[in-house]
């Protein structure tokens, strides 16, 4: 990773304002070291995707960033305005869609903000629906609206599309790109899906053995096509870093 001095005022501010700084963050469960002294700096507005095998601590890192896991050592800096969306929508079943989105928001504008957020995810007509009546994709849209309505500086996404069918997943990826292009939050997304990672990321990180073993910027223009050779090339790189050799992605 390129070292940037935060104290250097001469450098263009936008380029160096870090949204997230990890400084030697470690986390163990019993004897098992899951995260082993992670250092990381994420720029404001950057879309970072973290990949890794199951059990490599991706979600643990995200929980630490969300403030849900306090049992770590080391330090990190993150914006106080953060939102998280999980693999399951985690909607409150006994609140209708709009009150789910505005949960905990105060003030006269809460309702209007909630409506707007639901409009943006295409559910402006479902304000009074019960969560149980929504499809998996719709419920996840509500979860996304609930995250976005707080206007987060940092958006944390823990395999948000992992439980969705392939068609819905593609739609949700497009929706996420739209929302991010509009609101420009810093995003940390955890996923198993390498293709999804390459399509979405400004920067790819692969976590293995408690450390980042790959840190790659993806500068391809958007929207990216799954079939584009560049996308396939980066996908192959990442798979190789993960120790997976896919015939399809191996250059002959």
């Amino acid at each position, binding site marked *: 990773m390129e070292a940037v001095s935060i104290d250097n005022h001469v450098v263009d501010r936008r380029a160096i304002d870090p949204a997230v700084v990890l400084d030697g963050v470690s986390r163990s469960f019993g004897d098992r070291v899951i995260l082993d002294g992670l250092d990381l700096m994420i720029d404001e507005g950057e879309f970072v995707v973290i990949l890794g095998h199951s059990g490599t601590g991706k979600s643990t890192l995200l929980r630490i960033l969300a403030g849900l896991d306090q049992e770590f050592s080391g330090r990190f800096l993150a914006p106080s305005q953060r*939102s998280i969306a999980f693999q*399951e929508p*985690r909607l409150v*079943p*006994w*609140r209708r869609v709009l009150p789910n989105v505005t*949960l*905990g928001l105060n003030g006269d504008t809460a309702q209007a903000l909630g409506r707007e957020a639901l409009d943006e995810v295409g559910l402006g007509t479902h304000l009074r629906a*019960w969560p149980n009546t929504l499809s998996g994709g719709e419920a996840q849209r509500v979860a996304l609206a609930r995250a976005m309505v707080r206007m987060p500086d940092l958006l944390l996404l823990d395999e948000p599309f992992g439980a969705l069918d392939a068609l819905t997943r593609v739609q949700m990826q497009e929706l996420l790109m739209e929302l991010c292009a509009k609101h420009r939050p810093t995003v940390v997304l955890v996923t198993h899906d390498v293709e999804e990672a390459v399509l979405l990321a400004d920067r790819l990180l692969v976590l293995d053995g408690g450390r980042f073993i790959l840190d790659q910027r993806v500068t391809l223009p958007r929207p990216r096509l799954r079939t584009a050779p560049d996308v396939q090339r980066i996908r192959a790189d990442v798979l190789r870093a993960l120790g997976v050799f896919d015939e399809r992605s191996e250059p002959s």
Partner: protein
Amino acid sequence: MTEALQGTAGPLLPGAVEDAPPVTIGRTTDATLARVSRWTAGRPVGDRRRRRFGSGRMLGPLLLVFVWWLLSALGVLDPDLFPGPAEVVREGAHLIGTGQFHAALLASFRRVAVGMSIGVSTGVSLAVLAGLFSLGRNLFDSNMQIIKAVPTFSIAPLLIIWMGIGEGPKFLLIAISTSVPVYVGVYGAIRNMDPRLLDMARTLELRRSTLIRQIVLPGTTPEFLVGLRLSFASAWLALIFAEQVNAREGLAKLMNDGRNSFQIDLMLFVVVVYAILGLASYGFVRMLERRLLVWKQ
């Protein structure tokens, strides 16, 4: 035929079939068509529309009354020891006419209403305190388990010794019996709250009061209603015990009158009234479930 098939294939893949050639699935024989139209025209699997209480659900009790009437009419039941429905209805009409029934029902109803109000509100309050605070748990939970374990009716004589033979011990007996089921339900619901939902609430940085009012307490409604249903059952049972001693008015008094004057039709009438009250409270809780648990359907 093909039209019918396209009609069902269309909405399954929105947007994806616009340019696709018409879908044909093998040969559309009459048999396949019959199959298709059955699953499009039939009621959806797992249709959870609920029948209104009182429509189909009264079939069982009505059948019971019919069998009773039949056995009486056939002479299987001795009319002196087990009068038929007609005699019981006649006796009931008589009691209603003299105003005796009215007074008895009102007195019993009042006991259940007061006792249950105290019992249910106490049960819920203690469950919330024990569910949310460790001090509350240490103070109340074991005690509630003790009350659950001790047969409440065994302390009825003690209550009478301590509180006299007025309405007090009657209210208290019903209150104790009805507090336990709602306590168990609500306490369990709070303790078993989905931890993922609580995690989510933490990330939204909800104030504790908001968390309790908007997430924890509404989430206990299903278990509260299950508890309430059991509380009603306990209430009518406790009423019978409570009214055994010096009740000048009430359903048990009617029952005792019947026993003393060997009026079996009167006694059976009271039994029928208990049955109706039990069914009615069951219907009441079901009505609450329909209103309060719309989000579950």
